[in-house]
């Protein structure tokens, strides 16, 4: 049990994992691991089509069992984040499908999914106008833990998920659990912004070194 940890756990990534997908990535933060499969732009059904933009569809698949409302919430949150970075106006009347298969859930799974999906988009070559980085922060009393594990999340009184636009540090996603104060939230944002810069640095370094 570490008291107040400001460092991210080790990040792992492997690209081109699935042969038939346009883009795929296996991404992990600590022991939390996701497999992301990106396909698109591809054909869209009549009911989902949009004449101005590509339709972004995200599916989050749990390790076992069917999706429940928690996974629906997770997938809408990831969908919103990715819709804000993908240049959807370039591919109207198509869809971009992102499937996130949870492989191992050991805390910070939402930020792991968002970061993995971002890397999947880059692997697929989908044009994006910015990089986004997501971070989960927990707080117990006055100690903050960045990128918590499952045990850290259970012990904490507050768990906050944040996603930032890498260019200007604006917030694309915020999701809080637990009771906190306004100043707690402000401090958590500051801590998370610093950690998000490190995630972004990893993403850039990874793709620069694995150009294929």
């Amino acid at each position, binding site marked *: 049990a570490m008291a107040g940890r400001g460092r991210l756990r080790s990040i792992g990534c492997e690209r081109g994992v699935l042969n038939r997908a346009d883009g795929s990535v296996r991404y992990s933060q600590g022991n939390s691991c996701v497999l992301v499969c990106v396909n698109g732009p591809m054909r869209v059904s009549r009911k989902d089509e949009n004449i101005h933009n590509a339709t972004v569809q995200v599916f989050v698949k749990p390790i076992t069992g069917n999706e429940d*409302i928690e996974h629906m919430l997770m997938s809408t949150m990831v969908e919103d984040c990715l819709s*804000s970075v993908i240049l959807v106006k370039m591919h109207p009347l198509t869809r971009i499908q992102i499937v996130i298969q949870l492989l191992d859930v050991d805390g910070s799974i939402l930020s792991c999914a968002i970061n993995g999906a971002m890397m999947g988009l880059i692997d697929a070559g989908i044009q994006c106008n910015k990089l986004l980085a997501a971070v989960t922060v927990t707080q117990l009393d006055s100690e903050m833990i960045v990128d918590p594990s499952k045990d850290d999340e259970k012990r904490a009184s507050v768990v906050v998920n944040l996603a930032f636009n890498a260019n200007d540090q604006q*917030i694309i996603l*915020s999701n*809080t*659990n637990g*009771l*906190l104060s306004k100043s707690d*939230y402000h401090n958590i944002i500051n801590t998370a912004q610093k950690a998000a810069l490190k995630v972004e640095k990893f993403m850039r370094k990874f793709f620069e070194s694995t150009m294929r």
Partner: protein
Amino acid sequence: MDVRRTAVSLGSIKTADGSALAKVGGTTVACGLKLEVGIPSALKPKEGRFEVSLKLASLCSPEINKKSLGRTFVGNDKRIDAMAATIKKTIASSQMMNLEELCIKEGASVWVVYIDLVCVDFSGNIFDAALMAVGGALRSLQLPPTQIAEDGEVMLSREGKSSRLTIKRYPISISFGILDQKHIVADPTAEEEKLLEGRLSVAFTTDGHLCLVHKEGRESISSKRINDCLDIAEKYAEKMVKKHPKVFGFVAS
């Protein structure tokens, strides 16, 4: 930053174990609570549970089945389920009720509260109305007296009084629509919601704690703007306690 007129009435549905009807402007959400006996989880043998479901009734809007509603934050099933999950998390985060009060027999039987929300009139911003309706319904909830038969089955008993839940605090939310960096609208109407690309819901409890900051949608927002919204939401929660004392005010038990 104006919010439309709100109204909450308790106990409107007589067949439910607890109910409330909440309005924010024209948006009307009804909440019915149904109690069922369930088995507690092994890790928390003294705690009851609750489940939240949200539905848009077909009569709530003439555009209910049209694609235009699907483009907004409500209308398609996934977004509505996601909203129900957010409402459930807000209730859990706020710690408004003590789940141990739902215990019938430790380790064997607990009450499971099914919170069913139905939007009967859609004029934009379901989230705030839904959360108020849940608060009101939980306040009006009556737990019937029970007795346990020899075989362990729980039955309603004729003697004994119904009890109410002790509600420590109520979460009160205000939702903002984000059009772009400069324009943030509080309590968007249906027409406004169609144009919005981002939404921020902030909930404060009636005793001043922050229990939800939920930002979704494509538009990003700076942390300074979020702080401005937090200040507005804090004042709004205080105002609501004064405006609806019979629902959100304290009851001496």
